[in-house]
């Protein structure tokens, strides 16, 4: 399928009656989840996953990506209104959003944030569309040996660049890979790590693992911190009229600063291409750039609208870049992309070279889903800032029982198996412990999702080229990059420790 044909087909699929309602529901759901502090984009996607069974691919993609695309918008609203970022990626918005609110400019800040999110997402989507012809050529060079080494490289990036400690992240990533080995080996029919349990013969089911790691673990956290959803109770509510007026002014301000939006979106999209970086660092880098390039540097941190615009634009532009590696190589760069990849497996959508070569319409459907989803988020956010913000005042003691039964029902519904509820509980406990002890859940999930590709591609690479496949040009280059990157980071850690010791003396 040609690119223009794919673009037209993707657009009409996105606005069709079979797809659009799911996109609408997903986008509103994502916005609601984004508003609730403690529930992240991963949570929104994890909750959507069980519903994908039985859905048409187009509808499922729209539902999943619609939910994901608006989470950051919802999180931006609470970051500004309650000084509580709904998701980690909105942390940079805290620097200038709340000071603007305190100056009576909350509507202006939220309007600017909503519009910047939409513009950033659109930029990221266009960037991905422009990358498609390049990706179509690049993927031709990627066979099993290359994919195997690329998977290891991606996992290394995720472990090193994540906010958690390097050793802990590597342990999590490798554990994820090992968990993917559970079940029957397709080549030899050998049962691996099943403990004789019939339910484990097909391996650990993705959905309960995802639900456990991200949804149950969050419930766990909320329950343990019982009733401590911050912010909602002491929020300064705005009058509806005043808010509306300011919101429209904020939207105008985002368009007025179009050059800043473009530059920060470019930072976000580029950083999205690098596995493991995620939205939060991109938002901070963009914020730093906005500050550096501003004429009013002194007012940053005291309520400068450019700070809000820069960080929010970068936040959403990341998705376009992150989708590129996920779709073209089947290598997710973040936990959200890992969940997306799992969702695509469930929907029967094959990633890798085929999707960018033969199913470009699906790629464009995703792009339009992101753009339209963000547009929906912006429109809904415009009129529902005040009602949406009340969602934060829901107490954890009420929220947790409701979400817990929905999560368990989702875990059961996938294979109609009570065993999967048990898996969700086990991974929920594991996810909570990992969160508390600083082990990267993203690395574990990405390792788990990549495990299938690592196992299959290592086997094929050895069959095709023997153990010397690592000496082929691309695998060798990727392996050198992996080792150099890892070595450099280990060296910097050792150097910093020595310096700290010297300083202590």
């Amino acid at each position, binding site marked *: 399928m040609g690119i223009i044909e794919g673009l037209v087909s993707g657009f009409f699929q996105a606005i069709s009656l079979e797809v659009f309602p799911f996109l609408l529901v997903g986008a509103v759901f994502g916005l609601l989840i984004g508003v609730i502090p403690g529930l992240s984009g991963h949570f929104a996607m994890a909750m959507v996953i069980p519903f994908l069974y039985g859905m048409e691919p187009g509808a499922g993609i729209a539902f999943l990506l619609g939910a994901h695309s608006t989470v950051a918008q919802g999180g931006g609203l609470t970051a500004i209104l309650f000084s509580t970022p709904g998701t980690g990626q909105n942390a940079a918005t805290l620097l200038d959003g709340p000071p603007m609110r305190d100056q009576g400019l909350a509507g202006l800040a939220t309007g600017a944030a909503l519009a910047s999110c939409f513009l950033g997402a659109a930029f990221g989507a266009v960037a991905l569309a422009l990358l498609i012809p390049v990706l179509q050529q690049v993927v031709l060079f990627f066979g099993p040996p290359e994919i195997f080494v690329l998977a290891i490289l991606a996992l290394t990036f995720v472990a090193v660049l994540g906010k958690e400690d390097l*050793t802990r992240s*590597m342990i999590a990533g490798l554990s994820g890979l090992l968990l993917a*080995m559970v079940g029957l080996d397709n080549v030899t029919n050998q049962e*691996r790590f099943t403990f004789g349990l019939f339910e484990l013969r097909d391996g650990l089911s993705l959905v309960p693992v995802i639900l456990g790691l991200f949804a149950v673990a969050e419930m766990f956290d909320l329950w343990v911190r019982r009733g401590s959803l911050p912010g909602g109770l002491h929020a300064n509510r705005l009058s509806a009229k005043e808010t509306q007026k300011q919101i429209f002014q904020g939207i105008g301000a985002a368009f007025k600063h179009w050059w800043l939006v473009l530059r920060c979106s470019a930072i976000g999209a580029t950083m999205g291409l690098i596995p493991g970086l995620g939205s939060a660092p991109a938002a901070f880098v963009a914020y730093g750039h906005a500050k550096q390039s501003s004429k009013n540097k002194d007012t940053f941190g005291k309520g400068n609208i450019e700070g809000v615009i820069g960080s929010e634009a970068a936040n959403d532009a990341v998705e376009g870049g992150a989708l590129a590696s996920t779709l073209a190589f089947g290598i997710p760069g973040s936990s959200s992309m890992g969940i997306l990849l799992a969702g695509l497996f469930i929907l029967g959508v094959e990633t890798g070279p085929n999707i960018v070569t033969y199913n470009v319409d699906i790629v464009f459907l995703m792009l339009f889903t992101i753009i339209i989803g963000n547009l929906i988020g912006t429109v809904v956010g415009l009129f529902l800032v005040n009602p949406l913000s009340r969602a934060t005042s829901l107490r954890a003691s009420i929220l947790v*029982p409701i979400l817990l039964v929905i999560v368990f029902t989702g875990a*059961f519904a996938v294979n109609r198996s009570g065993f999967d509820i048990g898996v969700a509980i086990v991974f929920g406990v594991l996810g909570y412990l990992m969160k508390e*002890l600083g082990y990267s859940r993203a690395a574990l999930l990405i390792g788990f999702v990549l495990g299938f590709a690592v196992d299959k591609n290592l086997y094929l690479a050895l069959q095709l080229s023997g153990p010397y496949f690592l000496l082929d040009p691309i695998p060798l280059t990727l392996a050198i990059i992996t080792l150099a990157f890892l070595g450099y980071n280990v060296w910097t850690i050792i150097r910093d420790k020595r310096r700290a010791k010297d300083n202590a003396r």
Partner: protein
Amino acid sequence: MELYFIVVVGLIVAAAFISASSYEFVSARTPIVIMVPLMILIGVQFVRAKKASRSVDVRSVLSTVTKGDNKTFNRAVGFIGWMVLLLALIVVAGHYVGIAALMFILLKFVSKEEMFFSLALSAGVTLVIFMLFELGFDVELHRGAIFKIWAGDAGL
């Protein structure tokens, strides 16, 4: 805490390694390639966690936990208990009875909500789940062991 966590993970990986060594070579290859660096890293992290725990009086921490004085630990264990109870209720009494009962118990007796609110919310959420899964997605949720036995069926 991390010390115990890493020890448990280490033991599981060691057991997996022993188990993998009995597999056919082709099947054992990838897991062993993964487990060798994993065990080294677990060793490194064990040493780090042990060093970090030197400044902590492990006995007093354990004594606080076993006496039930650690509120966070109590809540965490309690939450695991609620989840296991929910699973048991679903298996025995069925999905709808299980989720409605657990929601009511949590809302009324743990969260101390009003009786009417607890009942209405439990029933409402159960109804929404029924409409969404059974009517919307045509997924038959578990009817429960009791129902299945009476219906001449078995298993979850």
